């Protein structure tokens, strides 16, 4: 392997994506028309703001057409100590985008000697989504949610995106993916400004339950195999994934409630 040395006017600075381009490893290639291919798609993700932070959640199912291709996909991923990304859309490009995004954040921090601001990270992700536009036009759409704890203002913040890289900061909650409508209805009905972290964890679990109940592409809790949605809180203490044992008891309460309807 050779050292990546560049003339001063072509130096990529702290931009990892540019560096990949310079060395010929750019992941953003032109796709042929792949819309006919059965490519795994990831589905419903939600994020809500709560007292002292944010809570994110995503179901575990990936589908190719009418088939379930993965039961245990992780769509909510830690981006760094104080932020996370949730993804819906074509699984391959989405996973690549998350990997690149994590690397970009870390690369910037190491080269510059200080971390990017939360807003800076949200902006960076928007660029990645925009770069994916040609692929999105071919059916490989990726629509992420970005959420994190802003250490400068001491609050949770969240953003959603459209396929063109449009970046929208939301003040309360957001949902994306095929079960978006059902999940966001649950959030809309129950969300309050002063909701606690624990209440928010319960709320997002319920939102994913209702989405999975009405949308075939969204997976519900899989008690048989012990697969539960990925739920994580991000507060001043950092990124914290909710253990499956906690989710098991939350979902058993929800299903009991459904039985008694």
């Amino acid at each position: 392997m050779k050292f990546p040395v560049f003339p001063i006017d072509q130096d990529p600075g702290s931009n990892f994506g540019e560096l990949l381009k310079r060395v010929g490893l750019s992941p953003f290639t032109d796709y042929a028309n792949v819309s006919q291919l059965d490519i795994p798609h990831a589905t419903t993700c939600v994020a809500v703001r709560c007292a002292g932070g944010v809570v994110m959640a995503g179901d575990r199912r990936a589908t190719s057409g009418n088939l379930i291709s993965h039961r245990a996909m992780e769509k909510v991923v830690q981006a760094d100590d104080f932020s996370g990304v949730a993804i819906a859309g074509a699984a391959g490009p989405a996973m690549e985008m998350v990997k690149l995004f994590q690397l970009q954040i870390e690369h910037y921090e190491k080269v510059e000697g200080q971390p990017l601001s939360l807003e800076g990270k949200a902006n960076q992700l928007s660029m990645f989504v925009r770069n994916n536009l040609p692929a999105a036009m071919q059916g490989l759409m990726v629509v992420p949610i970005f959420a994190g704890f802003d250490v400068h203002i001491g609050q949770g913040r969240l953003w959603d995106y459209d396929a063109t890289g449009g970046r929208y900061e939301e003040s309360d909650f957001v949902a994306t993916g095929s079960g978006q409508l059902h999940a966001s209805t649950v959030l809309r009905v129950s969300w309050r400004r002063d909701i606690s972290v624990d209440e928010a964890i319960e709320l997002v679990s319920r939102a994913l339950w209702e989405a999975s109940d009405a949308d075939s592409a969204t997976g519900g809790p899989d008690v048989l195999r012990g697969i539960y949605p990925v739920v994580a809180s991000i507060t001043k203490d950092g990124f914290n994934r909710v253990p499956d044992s906690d989710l098991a008891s939350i979902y058993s309460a929800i299903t009991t409630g459904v039985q008694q309807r």
Partner: protein
Amino acid sequence: MSMPYYVAPEQMMKDRADFARKGIARGKSLVALQYNEGIAIIAENPSNTLRKSSEIYDRIAFAGVGKYNEFDSLRVLGVRSADLKGYQFSREDVDARSLANQYAQIIGQTFTHEVKPLEVEILVAELGITSAEDQLFHIMYDGTVIDEKPFIVIGGDTDTIKSKIAAAFKTDLTLKESCNLARTALSSDERTLQASDLEVTLLQRNGSRRCFKRITEDALAALLN
């Protein structure tokens, strides 16, 4: 037409080496040593913003002495190379030995082919799973690579500092003992260094992915006797 003077290659290399050594000796030295939780890098550095030691990868740290702009661009090259390798292959494929060799190549190349050699000496440290697997590479201004354990001193007056450390070094020093030992070794007879004169970074065997940690001035002041 004027003819260039003939200079014997031995003389040319000697002149370059002297030039580089002089440049390096003008700066301050640093010490890297194994302690009971990993590797500590302790540098004399009055600046709180222009860093001498920093993170390259999950278990790899970099430190340089000499001309700041020169070792800083080497540091950025290392981060790039490591991140590219980790992206292309896997995170566990990024290792200090190959990085040290790449550094040796570029520093050696500059030493023989460029008008001016780099006035730097650098250290590449990798934290192993156990302390026996720790690696410390010292790369000199002419591209010579040396692997040394359990401690390395790079910079100007290394012999004095080395002998001071060798006299009191033992395995499994605590962080507090390591910092105090390095402080004593780096201080001159006239002046004892304080927390604000030192930069301490660690590669800590703490189970997390990124093992690099920077000790703040306040935390360091509490550690020093």
